[in-house]
């Protein structure tokens, strides 16, 4: 089933940093949230759908498994930022890390060989050389799926004049805004404020019609629409069946020069890369270049054991890897969810879209 979730009010998806009022801490929102947060939301609501007795640990595990072992057949893709349009729900993706804006187009940089007499710290055969004026990467743009696919296929996409709800390319604020709120800790016994317990929480307020799209398999019995709890402070969301386009499958075979765009974050054993790329491909592929966003540390708090979970580094969504193949290579058929990630493929990490260069 595919779901489209819209917030009832604001949303709070904590970034996993520890947070308590007495440390005058600040809680930041990750948005869109990571698959780890989304799987929790979906599995929790499944207990409601199935009317599972929450005092019965065995029944819970039977219905939704645990945070690390899921019920058989359970699989998720996303969550993705999405917007309801006249043509149905449309997914939006962060601007690729290999993109530069030039006038009214967004252009993909092409890996090139180092010119003679030039050296750099890049540990790859090629680098993304930009001949124009130096530009700072505009990180707050989002591309609608069709615009992103055009970009990945042709290496360029027009920023059109069209504005408002239907824009194919828009700034972040046209989709959601961050909103800071100050709070002060309360003394539970007296219901009075605690001295010095100042904290700040960053909420996400989405523009009307914007929400999260997620594909879930292996959980049945859900109604066509309803309300569920989503994120921090038990904030709510309306959900309904999503009519977003089917997730684009990777071409087979892959183009000779193809690039992998990460649509959700990925975890790799060696940080920015896996031990061996061949683990994901049949046929020989070679990494030529990469455009990567700054890594994100993801940990979180484990309510069950009351401890901080281990924090690990993830390659952020929007990163792009450039490969060269013999034209016969393909994604391994055995990949869960067609995902490129060393962990979390089942719940939506490492979702990719393929382009060419």
């Amino acid at each position: 089933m595919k779901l489209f979730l819209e917030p009832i009010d604001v949303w709070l998806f904590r970034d996993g940093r520890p947070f308590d009022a007495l440390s005058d801490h600040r809680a930041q929102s990750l948005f869109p949230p990571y698959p780890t947060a989304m799987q929790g939301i979906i599995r929790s609501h499944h207990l409601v759908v199935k009317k599972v007795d929450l005092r019965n640990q065995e029944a819970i595990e039977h219905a939704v498994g645990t945070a690390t072992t899921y019920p058989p057949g359970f699989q998720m893709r996303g969550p993705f930022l999405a917007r309801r349009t006249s043509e149905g729900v449309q997914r939006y993706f962060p601007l690729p890390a290999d993109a530069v804006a030039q006038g009214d187009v967004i252009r993909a940089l092409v890996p090139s060989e180092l010119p003679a007499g030039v050296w750099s710290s890049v540990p790859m055969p090629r680098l993304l050389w930009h001949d124009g004026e130096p530009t700072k990467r505009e990180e707050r743009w989002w591309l609608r799926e069709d615009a992103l696919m055009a970009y990945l296929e042709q290496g360029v996409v027009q920023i059109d004049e069209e504005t408002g709800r239907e824009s194919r390319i828009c700034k972040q604020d046209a989709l959601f805004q961050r909103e800071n709120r100050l709070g002060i800790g309360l003394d539970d016994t007296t219901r009075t404020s605690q001295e010095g317990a100042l904290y700040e929480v960053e909420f996400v307020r989405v523009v009307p019609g914007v929400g999260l799209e997620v594909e879930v398999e292996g959980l049945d019995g859900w109604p066509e629409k309803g309300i569920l709890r989503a994120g921090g402070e038990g904030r709510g969301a309306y959900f309904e069946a999503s009519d977003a386009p089917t997730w684009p499958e990777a071409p087979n075979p892959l183009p000779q020069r193809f690039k992998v765009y990460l649509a959700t974050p990925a975890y790799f054993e060696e940080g920015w890369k896996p031990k061996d790329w061949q683990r994901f491909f049949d046929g020989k592929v070679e990494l030529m270049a990469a455009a990567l966003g700054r890594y994100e540390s993801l940990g979180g708090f484990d309510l069950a054991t009351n401890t901080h979970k281990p924090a690990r580094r993830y390659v952020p969504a929007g990163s792009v890897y450039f490969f060269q193949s013999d034209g016969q290579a393909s994604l391994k058929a055995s990949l869960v969810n067609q995902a490129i990630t060393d962990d979390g493929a089942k719940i939506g990490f490492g979702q990719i879209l393929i382009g060419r260069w």
Partner: protein
Amino acid sequence: MPDTILIFSLGPVQGFLAEARRAQDLWAGSRLLSELTQAAIQACRRSGAEMIYPADPSQESLPNKFVVKLPEGVAPEQAAEAARQAAQEELQQRGEVARQFLQSIIPSDSVWEKIWQRQLGNHLEFFWAAAVIEDDYPAAYQKASRAFDAAKRARTFQQVTEDGLKDSLSGRRSALRTAQGDARSYWNRIAASGRVTAAQLKPEGRERLDALGAIKRFGFGNEAERFPSTSSVAAADYLEKVRGKHQSALVAYREILKAIPKFYCVRGSEAWPYDGDLLYLETLVPERLRTSYGFGDADLQQYEGQLEAARLALRMLYNSIGRPSPYYALLVMDGDSMGKRVASCASEEEHRQLSQRLVSFAAQARQIVEQHQGTAVYAGGDDVLALLPLKRALPAAQALAEAFAKIVPGGTASAGLAFAHHLYPLDAVLRAAREAEGWAKGMEGKNAICVRALKRSGEPIEVRSHWGDLRTLFGELCQWFACGALSSRFAYEAAANLPFLDGEPVQSELKRLIQRHWDTRKSNPPDPDNLAKQLVAWADSLPGKAEELTD
């Protein structure tokens, strides 16, 4: 092989600066970054490199990116590798100071060592690029610069797993601990050792540090503690006023504080040796005394009488001169389009001259900030990061922008100012100031300032303007507000009512508000018709209207 240009940078700047809860953390982070850069520069110079930017590597603040010319025969990879190693070693050395201190309280073990080495070994990131100078310096610089930009696009990193309780500055890395108990108990023991003040470390394990946080707090001896806190900066102009006219009330208060040994001195000044937060009545409540000064129940009981006397003395001071502003300003400023300016240098000599001018600017920037009772966290390259008392912030920012334009011919600078409560989380203030700077640079032609006010409730307010417009009408407005001729209600009511009006009614409403809120006892009123007209014209000329800002 002919000479080559090497551009080298180290980071993450974010990690060194933004992971800060106190002004001292911000200072220590900035200082550490400068030290690492300096070590990297020295390594390059040992292999014969000549400085191009910054012109003077012995400055107090160094940018995290530098440019050198390598002589014939020196391979850029080797110079860059030497620079990388030197920065790593410098980090270890600065770390050694913190490590020795912590180990003198609680001996380390293999658990502690593992966390320490992992965090120091995996924190720094390096980007560099180089190009041969064939015959034309600008062409070679451009090549190196493009390769450098390309290098920054490939942000490779190692995988690291950080388990257990996280530190309180970054929230991302394991807090240091030994095999005996968790991080909370380790830091509780450090805080309770009697060797650290509550200003260095909150008691009861509420603050837990990782290796980098530990270096910020304990790697600089008491040098960091001498850097004024946000409370001291917020109260700086108040203190100056008190000293001029009401010294005796201050002395009376100070004498009472002296009798309570938990109040430690932070600087040599006899007139007021304490942190500025002791000028705020809210500091003298039990909870704050616990967290900021390490008072226990016994202390609170023992000093009950003295504390009451202190509160009374502080109220007396307030009665005679008023309260200090609880707000201060954080300023972020840098030159506009510096990349383009550097790229347009026609020769190596011109590039060096520009670097030299920036050294002069940095020196002058420190002076300007100090003249306005502020403190520079960083002044190097074309960047300034400073803390300023609220009332002095705008004049200081203007003076800095003017100095920049004077020293760098044809250059302009833009600034972001965040106004925040002295207890507001510092990392959020820094982020607000950075965002404000971004909005200032978003104005046509840059050369602008954006102020972001973080109130203690509700949404932040931001305003931006080109520098020129600040001097005229806006300056006058400020003076009228300051002397009380125009009530501040004018601004609130204008903000509340005007968005619903359009065209002529705006001017009429403004005129009404001016008449209503003008106090003729304080100053002669200007012609309200004329002033309303000027205000409308000014507002229309501002490129950033409210909706544009949130865009």
